[in-house]
């Protein structure tokens, strides 16, 4: 049975649905960076970048650490790898659909057989 999507995975997928946030992840994959660095690289305001990093942090894709006056962002690698489990979820979705489709098709088959008999009679 397909379980209801987990809130954590959903938050991750939502976080990944934005092009800037995917860019931030890519950037952090190369090197840790401060919010100020990231805002500069993506040509955004500090507040705008903080919002994006906040979403990534909530989804568990990024961790941040404040040292002095600088907040450094890092990729939360372990969590990102877990998301590759998406293929299992994709499988569950289609499996569940196809089980239902199977029932519909079986019903059509039975109906056709019955109709065929009726026509012959």
């Amino acid at each position, binding site marked *: 049975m*397909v379980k209801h*999507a987990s809130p954590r995975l959903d938050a991750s*997928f939502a976080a990944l649905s934005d092009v800037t946030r995917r860019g931030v992840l890519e950037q952090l994959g190369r090197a840790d960076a401060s919010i100020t660095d990231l805002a500069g690289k993506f040509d955004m305001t500090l507040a705008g970048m903080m919002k994006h990093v906040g979403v990534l942090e909530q989804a568990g894709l990024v961790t941040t650490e404040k040292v002095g006056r600088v907040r450094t962002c890092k990729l939360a690698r372990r969590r990102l790898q877990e998301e590759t489990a*998406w293929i299992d979820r994709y499988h569950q*979705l*289609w499996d569940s659909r196809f089980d*239902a*489709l*199977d*029932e519909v098709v079986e019903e059509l088959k039975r109906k056709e057989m019955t109709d065929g008999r009726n026509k012959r009679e």
Partner: protein
Amino acid sequence: MDAIKESEAATAKNRTTVEQTSEREIVVTRTFDAPARLVFEAWTQPELFKRWWVPRSIGMSLLACEMDVRPGGKYRLAFGNDPAKPLEFFGKYLDVVPNARIVWTNDEGGEGGAVTTVTFQEMGGKTLLVVRDLYPSKEALVAGHGAEEGMPEALDQLDELLRR
């Protein structure tokens, strides 16, 4: 009752496979114990399509299902629990070959949407169904597979996160 048991046994034998064949493509397959025309019918008649497209476990109903299944024809699916805020999926059919092939666009996500190709191959009274989702880029695939499944919850959560 026996008919139901038999159909369950048939279901158990048929496996769904999912494979990411490239960084832009996901392929799903399944064999159905019926001729291609019946599987095609279940895919193209809205009354039948409605009965299987939305997995029961999601607990949402299809609010609207408009399908003009012909090349250039459009489709629109709306589902959710709140009719005032339906979740919509729409696009158009690029190619339709009766009992053999359907190709459509997924336009709800803008330019990142996949093009889906479904083929129905009949062999000895059984039908091999192959569904290919081809995304415009690998980034679109990453974004798209999340959208396909966790969409409603994901959007709500994103809303929440952004409001903080």
